[in-house]
């Protein structure tokens, strides 16, 4: 165990090392061969991953608080410097980001033939932005790293310069996220004007007990940027456009960790600074209503998509809805379940995106109908690999027992039913079944080739045929692509089996909700955790297994119904009562940035109305 000071001193290096490496790559990248640039990037991200793991191990026993430049606050308790704070949740998130990036870089080893190291430098900037955002203990520093994450993500989204398909997905993503960041900055200005402080712990002290409507408005404006990044309805429109055009390895990071960081931002700001204010009595209602709306829109749109990447993007939106609903109860058990669910979802969703990328590079299209029966045309080990990984990941997403996503879902379900939300488990099962069913439907049609050859069924929505191959792999799919997808599925399954993970997650949840512990650690240096009974690691119980089995059955039913619908009597035309709302929902996702900004404005009003006291 390193001395108690070294961890504090080295914590900021987790942000500085990737930026240093990116700067060096920009300077000399043109002259280095592509293979060396990729290797250097992988080594640097690996180094950051090792640092994150060390931070996670240390935060198992105490928090790490690092005041930049030695500007520790004086006796009066309010300082001028910036604080970094790492506890188990933030260390786990940055480790997840580094791990997903290692797999994404391994998958895209020879992706961009163009000279220069822009892709790798931007990925390192993206990692530094995510790490800095998760560690920041200062609302303006969170804004700066939110912008760094954004700028790197806009460039990575639009990187396929040759791609004739929906390249304006990057501009929608850029404009909507920037508008949200500026509204957050207005919120930061308001909080600063009222309290004269920017540090989260200091804000917690000066906002304690403040029940004026101002606090509610400041919280809403401050969290708009994070809610947009978390793709919560009505701010979610940019996510599917960005996924439709972004290269596959970037999509893995978007759905795996960037969207979850938005949710982390909301929770951290609320839990530390606004937990003892007028926001506290409205937050449960807000998360519940936004969660249900997000899950509903995500699940329905997920069933309507034929473009694989957009389908997976809507599945991520549906899962964000489930996370919000489970977190609305506000007790540690549901937070622990959601943490495990996020880890499992990131691994399994990443594997699905990689499989979609493999199909795109092998067959030149990512459209469900064009790829009908494509899985069978894959020969030998490639075919077996893709078919099994795609199937396992689809089942894992729907909550197959050994997978971490399934365990997280069942923990959240039991927590919600104990917290009095009896309808909770039913809601989670329905949404998981719908999204899992959609992905299983794709598995049946694309990989197994079930159902009739779809000719002439010109379903609406964006077809995936325009999408251009990212790298032409020809007949033989490179092994590194299949291995990286397999590794992600294995991680998704492993996380669910290792008991110490679920024990750590339960402890992390309790420590995240401990506001006084955070303030004492940051301001007064008391970084130890309060003595808490070592909780028995929650695992699979009969109740959980039963619910998971029910979810699996429902998901398979949805998939089978969707595939066999044309043959069923009268199954051709869905009834009018279904078609009109679906058409309305489809027209709302217009792909036009002006509409998205209008929805964002309406969202600001709706969020404030829901949080308004009384």
């Amino acid at each position: 165990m390193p001395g108690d000071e070294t961890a504090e001193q080295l914590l900021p290096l987790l942000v500085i090392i990737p930026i240093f490496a990116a700067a060096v790559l920009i300077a000399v990248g043109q002259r280095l061969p592509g293979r060396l640039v990729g290797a250097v990037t992988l080594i640097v991200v690996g180094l950051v991953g090792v640092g994150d793991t060390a931070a996670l191990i240390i935060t198992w026993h105490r928090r790490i608080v690092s005041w930049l430049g030695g500007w520790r606050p004086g006796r009066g308790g309010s300082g001028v410097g910036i604080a970094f704070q790492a506890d188990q949740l933030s260390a786990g998130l940055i480790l997840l980001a580094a791990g997903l990036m290692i797999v994404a870089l391994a998958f895209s080893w020879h992706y961009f033939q163009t000279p220069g190291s822009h892709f790798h430098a931007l990925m390192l900037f993206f990692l530094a932005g995510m790490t800095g955002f998760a560690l920041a203990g200062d609302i303006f520093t969170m804004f700066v790293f939110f912008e760094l994450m954004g700028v790197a993500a806009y460039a990575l989204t639009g990187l396929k310069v040759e791609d004739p398909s929906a390249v304006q997905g990057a501009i929608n993503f850029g404009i909507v996220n920037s508008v949200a960041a500026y509204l957050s900055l207005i919120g930061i200005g308001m909080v600063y004007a009222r309290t004269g402080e920017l540090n989260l712990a200091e804000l917690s002290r000066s906002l304690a007990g403040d029940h004026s409507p101002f606090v509610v408005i400041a919280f809403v404006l401050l969290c708009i940027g994070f809610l947009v990044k978390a793709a919560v309805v009505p701010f979610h429109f940019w996510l599917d456009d960005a996924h439709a055009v972004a290269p596959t390895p970037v999509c893995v990071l978007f759905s795996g960790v960037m969207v979850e960081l938005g949710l982390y931002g909301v929770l951290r700001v609320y839990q530390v600074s606004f937990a003892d204010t007028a926001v506290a009595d409205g937050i449960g209602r807000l998360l519940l209503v936004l969660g249900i709306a997000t899950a509903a829109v995500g699940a329905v749109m997920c069933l309507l998509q034929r473009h694989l990447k957009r389908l997976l993007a809507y599945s991520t939106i549906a899962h964000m809805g489930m996370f919000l609903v489970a977190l609305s109860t506000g007790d540690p058990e549901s937070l622990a379940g959601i943490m495990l669910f996020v880890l499992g979802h990131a691994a399994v969703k990443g594997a699905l995106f990689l499989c979609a990328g493999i199909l795109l590079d092998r067959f030149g299209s990512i459209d469900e109908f064009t790829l009908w029966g494509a899985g069978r045309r894959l020969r030998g080990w490639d075919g077996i690999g893709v078919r099994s990984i795609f199937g396992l990941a689809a089942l894992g997403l729907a909550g197959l027992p050994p997978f971490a996503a399934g365990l997280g879902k069942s923990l959240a379900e039991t927590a919600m039913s104990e917290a009095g939300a009896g309808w909770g488990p039913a809601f989670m099962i329905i949404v998981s079944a719908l999204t899992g069913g959609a992905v299983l439907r794709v598995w049946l049609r694309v990989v197994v080739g079930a159902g009739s050859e779809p000719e002439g069924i010109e379903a609406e929505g964006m077809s995936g045929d325009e999408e251009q191959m990212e790298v032409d792999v020809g007949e033989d799919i490179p092994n590194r692509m299949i291995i990286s997808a397999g590794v992600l599925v294995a991680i998704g399954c492993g996380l669910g089996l290792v008991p110490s993970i679920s024990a750590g997650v339960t402890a992390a949840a309790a420590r995240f909700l401990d506001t006084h512990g955070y303030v004492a650690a940051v301001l007064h240096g008391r970084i130890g955790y309060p003595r808490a009974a070592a909780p028995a690691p929650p695992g699979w119980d009969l109740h959980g297994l039963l619910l998971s089995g029910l979810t699996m059955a429902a998901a398979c039913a949805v998939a089978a119904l969707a595939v066999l619908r044309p043959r069923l009597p009268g199954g051709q035309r869905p009834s009018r009562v279904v078609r009109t709302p679906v058409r309305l929902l489809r027209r709302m996702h217009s792909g036009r940035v002006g509409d998205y900004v209008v929805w964002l404005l309406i969202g600001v009003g709706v969020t404030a109305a829901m949080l308004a006291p009384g």
Partner: protein
Amino acid sequence: MSRRVRMILLVVGLLGAVTVLAVGVSGLPAFGGHHHPYRDLAVAASLRHATANVVSAVNFDQRALDTFGEETILVASVAGVAALLRPVRRERRRRRPDVPVMDSTRLLTAVFFPVTLLIGIDVMAHGAITPGGGFQGGVVLATGIHLLYVGGRYRLLERMRPLPLFEITEAAGLVIFIAIGAAGLAVAGHVFTNILPQGQLGRLISSGTVVLLSGAVGMAVVSSVVILLAGFLDQALALEEVPDTDQDSDGAEEAAR
């Protein structure tokens, strides 16, 4: 959504946003009040480190990480723009006939070019004493270099600012910023600590690392803005869409830089 529906929803959204902002602003202290606790702490800390320009003290000494993040955002956006605007197969570089420049303009730019460079360097060097600093000085220098294009020819500008050199100085600016931060870590145990002797208020050599960090930021900003403008100038002036008719292969090689 049709235009009319979008207008209605826009008005609804605006009403909601106006009420939100109104309630928020009403909770703020009135404009021009005297209650600024962070300012008192920042001024005290800045004077302790003998930095005359408190804004530079906050930027480069007390909240150095924000400035580091800001520089990284600029360098990342330069890398992004370079990646997005890289010449593609269907583009060819063409030699444009140069627009004749009036002699008076040529004379003015010949006079202003060195003056602008001096102003930029002065603003950057005196960051800790007078208004200005690495960032402002850097942008003044970068726009100054482009006076050559106004007064001379685009090819003269291209010769006078070799882009590979600026890519190295941009990365060097960021690396030096990190090196100074790491020196603070090595010596005093915290990244970005002001470890140099701070000297006397108002002197050129004062406020320790603030001057050095300001210089590093200036170097990074000069090169970032030059590369950004070069990217856009290149697109607008030098690159030309190859009509699909004569899809000659040599055009593609020439386009790839």
